[in-house]
């Protein structure tokens, strides 16, 4: 699966990267990213996730071919 991150997350991860690990749900992905980079734990808790540009819940099931966007809390305006 392809992971794309934005804003403050670029401090902790590459802007876009491929993930080969076996990850079955968004909840597992959130945990995986936290384990990979514990410094990002706090912000990851507040992130929303989108698959194919649509928001998904923690229960969303991943097949491994998705383009997943990790979205930190909005701070526009």
């Amino acid at each position, binding site marked *: 699966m392809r992971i794309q991150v934005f804003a403050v997350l670029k401090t902790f991860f590459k802007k876009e990267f491929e993930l080969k690990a076996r990850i079955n749900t968004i909840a597992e992905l959130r945990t995986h990213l936290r384990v990979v980079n514990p410094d990002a734990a706090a912000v990851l808790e507040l992130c929303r996730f989108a698959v194919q540009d649509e928001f998904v819940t923690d229960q969303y099931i991943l097949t491994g071919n998705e383009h997943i966007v990790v*979205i*930190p809390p909005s*701070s*526009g305006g």
Partner: protein
Amino acid sequence: MSISLSFHQAAEVNMDFITKKEIDLVALLQKSHCPSAGAVVLFSGEVRNHNIGKSVRYLEYEAHTNMATKMIAEILLAARNRWSLSIAFAQHRIGKVKVTESAVVVITASVHRGEAYASNRYIIDRIKHEVPIWKCEHFADGTKEWGGNCNCAKDTGDVNKHLYEFESV
């Protein structure tokens, strides 16, 4: 990315909800007069020279343009239907934005003024809380900091549940 919205004449001018260019408040305002509307409200969110006690040099905005564009379109449509607006438009700038420049504009027009104010507030509040746009503050001392303004999840326990100011006024 552009979306045609027949309810704002700006459709022909510049309909990008997310833009890298300077926001042309004047052109947008000039297009916002409608024979059936008695009230026009324009909100401009502008870059301040200070924040939390620190001197600000400029801001830098980033967006997930595709998602942000779709979400702003949905928010404008929801506002338009809820308040029977003649005009509902919003535009957010990305990239470097200097002090006194506009980072975001919202324009609403309706028969009476109550609806124009309420819907304007609704649109900006939803944009600020929900739409994937982020701000990085560049301070005069050379440091920078990414904003994370929407803290609603701390109170609601759900990153998709927000507490809106427009609901409390």
